[in-house]
């Protein structure tokens, strides 16, 4: 037992906590739950921002021109491939292409089609929708050079469609997986042409399947832009112009915006602006969740204070005896304070571990509650987040332990022994 004093006190504190195992376990569980919520939230905040960054970077554009509308809609359209579809006149492409500041430009036509219930995730009865992107492979691949066609069994001779083709398509990785399609297979979709009363069932030929990118492109069906416009009966319209500027900075972007905002139907959306918009979209929700997490932590701390106070009350006589036997105020303070610290430290470790293990569950839960418009992992529990959680809850534990420790250390031995005898 010849350990340094602190070690001896730590051992004593551990032994004291073992006396009421259920209470200790419940208190630790309370702290762990609060820390788990905190860590998951921190991981979500960090992961979501990272996912937005990644998703937007993987768009390959610095600037987009699209039809005037809600900026939130524009932001989701960029990442999800378009649900609130507004269209630009096709000649906007030629007008903008002539701008001296433009290094490269690609037109994209986006439409939503009803596909057949052949996919592995489709219910037997319900119809499923797919995003069809009409693109020009030559200019599109300049923006997204990482797009690669899948090779290997079932994907031999994969290629991009011919620009003049009307029935050739390239499937994103997930679209092909869900539809169980390979190169050479047929793909059926029902398209509602604009202004026509009847939807048309179309048969397409899969000529290529893309490797996984971790972006919205994985779930997209690509086809020649001309064919897409015709299929949706919008021959003179397009959805997005993806642009890379020769010299990209905020000043040049503003100049570019001012030049093209003069067109009445156009809005110019910069990459940074979209990031800010998307982060702004969830900031309010995150603040509310943070408030809930803060309340959970507060409740857990009150639980810790309550548990330690009860324990101090139960041990009044013992504390009196310890003081009679030579324990100073500081000794009792350390002992009780250490118990609080141990509870909080254990809780934070268990909670952090649970958050790491349950990150996948949290991600699935968040995704099931809201469509966040980004692909890839949105919960990123980094060592820094864990360190903050452990240090934060330990610091709060230090604070929470002050009152019970002070109360125990302030007991007069005579009163404590007398009270202990009457308990």
């Amino acid at each position, binding site marked *: *037992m*010849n350990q340094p*004093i602190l070690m*001896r*006190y730590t051992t*004593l504190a551990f*032994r*004291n906590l*073992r*006396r009421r195992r259920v209470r200790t376990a419940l208190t630790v569980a309370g702290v762990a739950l609060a820390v788990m919520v905190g860590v998951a939230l921190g991981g979500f905040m960090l992961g979501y921002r990272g996912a937005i960054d990644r998703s937007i970077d993987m768009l390959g554009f610095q600037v987009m021109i699209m039809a005037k509308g809600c900026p939130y809609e524009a932001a989701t359209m960029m990442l999800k491939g378009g649900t609130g579809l507004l269209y630009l006149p096709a000649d906007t492409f030629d007008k903008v292409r002539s701008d001296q500041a433009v290094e490269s430009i690609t037109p994209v036509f986006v439409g939503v089609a009803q596909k057949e219930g052949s996919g592995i995730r489709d219910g037997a009865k319900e119809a499923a929708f797919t995003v069809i992107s009409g693109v020009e492979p030559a200019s599109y691949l300049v923006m997204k050079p990482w797009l690669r066609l899948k090779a290997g069994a079932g994907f031999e001779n994969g290629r991009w469609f011919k620009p003049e083709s009307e029935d050739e398509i390239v499937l994103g990785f997930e679209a092909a997986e869900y539809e169980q399609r390979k190169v050479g297979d047929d793909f059926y979709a029902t398209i509602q042409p604009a202004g026509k009363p009847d939807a048309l069932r179309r048969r397409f030929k899969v000529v290529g399947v893309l490797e996984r990118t971790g972006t919205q492109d994985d779930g997209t069906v690509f086809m020649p832009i001309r064919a897409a416009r015709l299929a949706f009966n919008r021959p003179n319209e397009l959805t997005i112009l993806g642009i890379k500027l020769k010299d990209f900075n905020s000043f040049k972007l503003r100049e570019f915006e001012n030049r093209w905002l003069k067109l009445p139907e156009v809005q110019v959306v910069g990459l940074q602006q979209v990031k800010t918009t998307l982060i702004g979209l969830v900031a309010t929700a995150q603040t509310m969740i943070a408030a809930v997490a803060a309340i959970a932590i507060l409740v857990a701390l009150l639980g810790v204070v309550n548990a330690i106070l009860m324990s101090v009350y139960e041990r009044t*006589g*013992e504390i*009196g*005896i*310890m*003081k*009679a*036997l*030579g*324990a*100073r*105020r500081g*000794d009792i303070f350390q002992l009780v304070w250490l118990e609080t610290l141990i509870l909080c430290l254990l809780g934070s470790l268990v909670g952090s571990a649970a958050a790491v293990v349950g990150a996948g569950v949290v991600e699935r839960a968040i995704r099931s509650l809201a469509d966040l418009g980004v692909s890839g992992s949105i919960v990123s529990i980094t060592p820094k987040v864990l360190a903050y959680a452990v240090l934060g809850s330990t610091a709060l534990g230090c604070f929470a332990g002050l009152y019970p420790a002070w109360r125990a250390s302030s007991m*007069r*031995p*005579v009163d404590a*022994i007398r009270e*202990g*005898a009457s308990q």
Partner: protein
Amino acid sequence: MKPLIEAKGLKRYYRRGVETVKALDGVDVSIGEGEMVSILGPSGSGKTTLINLLSCLDAPSEGTLTVAGKPAAGLTEDQLVELRRGTLGFVFQQFHLLPTLTVAENVELPLVFLGRSVERRKTLEILSWVGLEDRASHLPNELSGGQMQRVAIARALSIEPRILVADEPTGNLDKKSGRMIFDLFKRLAREKGLAVLITTHNTAFGYEADRVITLEDGRIVREERPART
């Protein structure tokens, strides 16, 4: 005999609402090394108050008190702790052993507070003195009441005190265990030279001490030296 505790005109008042209660009303006591003193008296006579003052657990309202050569009256709570540390050993009616510590660890506990080194050999020696060396690794809930009180005595002895204070040490014990504990106190005074101060309701045990002080209403009404047969 050199006095280890010397008190003159010791008084202790308490406030109970608007009323002032005189728990102790001018007591003179002197206790020397190797002397065993019993304090007898009915409930409420001031036995515990007196023993609390003499053992520096409480401070007197008036009077002078010297413990182990140091003045003890008028000291603050923290100063009283310093005076007690290493000088006084305590045994109470409630044993208050830490249930998660073994017998040996309970005995060693005061040494942790005093920052002294712990030697298991010494602990076993002390335990053998109270007849419990074979129970060193047991937990308190595996012991009888008498055994627990003997562990409490061993715990008090671990700091090698000069004064041993026992407040109703046999109050929770059967007659046989009480006898064993009292014999132990007598041996401690005789063989180790400790000043032993005991309060008890048990007159038969009390009269086995070297000196018997009887209190009533906060005053000493009788002081006797029982004749030995």
